């Protein structure tokens, strides 16, 4: 049984000009947890994930992993990985070379190269892949890193139902060893895969216990559940 780790995010505030985007955010996630983060466009989901990851600066934040505070978690190896909204793979390397550059363990390299959905594309460049293929490969690569938590920013965005299913099963396969915070506008997939749901609205995090609460908070249109 893998060791349980805890991520606690506390007191995050973020302001853009006159607008207070995030107000005293609190979140927690454990190994084995998939925390779904929903919210309207522009409510600060990506900003929040990047603040947790440490690549976006804010004066007010308190990020702890297993009780230890990390101002910029990404600089500490084996702590956290982040799947950004847009493609982050180098354009000048084939998938095979990206795998060799990214992963140090020969066993993990071979594991990724033998994946049924990856092995036929090994000699292609990342920009030659479809959105679904690219998303799947990026996620598979990040899952091989020995990190405790992975932050996923719109992993299902613009991809076909078949790849959504592949990505969901990848996440479930690695759930035992990692904790996930996932945000996406494909809320049905997020609801299906997440253990807990948080709605980010007006700068606050609101725990969601029933899907109908999303309607009450105005996140989904009226009549969705009728």
């Amino acid at each position: 049984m893998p060791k349980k780790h805890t991520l606690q995010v506390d007191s995050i505030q973020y302001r853009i000009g006159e607008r207070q985007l995030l107000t005293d955010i609190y979140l927690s996630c454990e190994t084995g947890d998939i925390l779904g983060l929903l919210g309207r466009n522009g409510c600060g989901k990506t900003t929040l994930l990047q603040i947790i990851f440490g690549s976006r600066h804010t004066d007010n934040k308190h990020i702890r992993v297993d009780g230890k505070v990390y101002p910029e978690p990404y600089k500490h190896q084996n702590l956290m990985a982040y799947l950004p909204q847009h493609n982050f793979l180098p354009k000048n390397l084939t998938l095979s070379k990206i795998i060799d550059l990214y992963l140090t363990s020969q066993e993990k390299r071979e594991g990724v190269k033998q994946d049924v959905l990856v092995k036929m594309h090994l000699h292609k460049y990342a920009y030659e892949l479809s959105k679904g293929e690219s998303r799947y490969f990026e996620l598979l690569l990040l899952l091989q890193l020995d990190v405790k938590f992975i932050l996923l920013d719109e992993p299902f965005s613009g991809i076909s139902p078949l790849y959504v299913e592949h990505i969901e099963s990848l996440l479930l396969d690695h759930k035992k060893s990692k904790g996930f915070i996932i945000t996406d506008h494909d809320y049905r997939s997020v609801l299906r895969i997440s253990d807990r749901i948080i709605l980010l609205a007006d700068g606050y995090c609101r725990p969601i216990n029933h899907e109908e609460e999303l309607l009450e908070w105005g996140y989904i249109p009226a009549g969705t559940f009728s």
Partner: protein
Amino acid sequence: MHKLKLRLHYYKVLQSFNLPFSLLASSTGFIFQEHVAARIINAFSLSLLTGGFLIALYLFEDRYSGQYFFYHNLGLSKINLIVSSFLFNVGLVILLWFVKVYLYA
């Protein structure tokens, strides 16, 4: 070693922008009558560390800014990558300085 490979990868992408600009800048050495090779090396080295480097950083930010997450996920910050690349260029300039000394010894 792994991080060095990642830094070198970033450096190579930056150089793909920096080198053409610096080579162009080095052509100013031809306007001089004497010590043409030395002046070409001087102009190339200066550009490599200043204008060419800044242009390369700007173009990387403009075209591939999302690619920084590729390195961030392995613990490398933007500052770390930029400083490493600058130091690689300093190494290259020192090497060129030795070439210049050898040519005019």
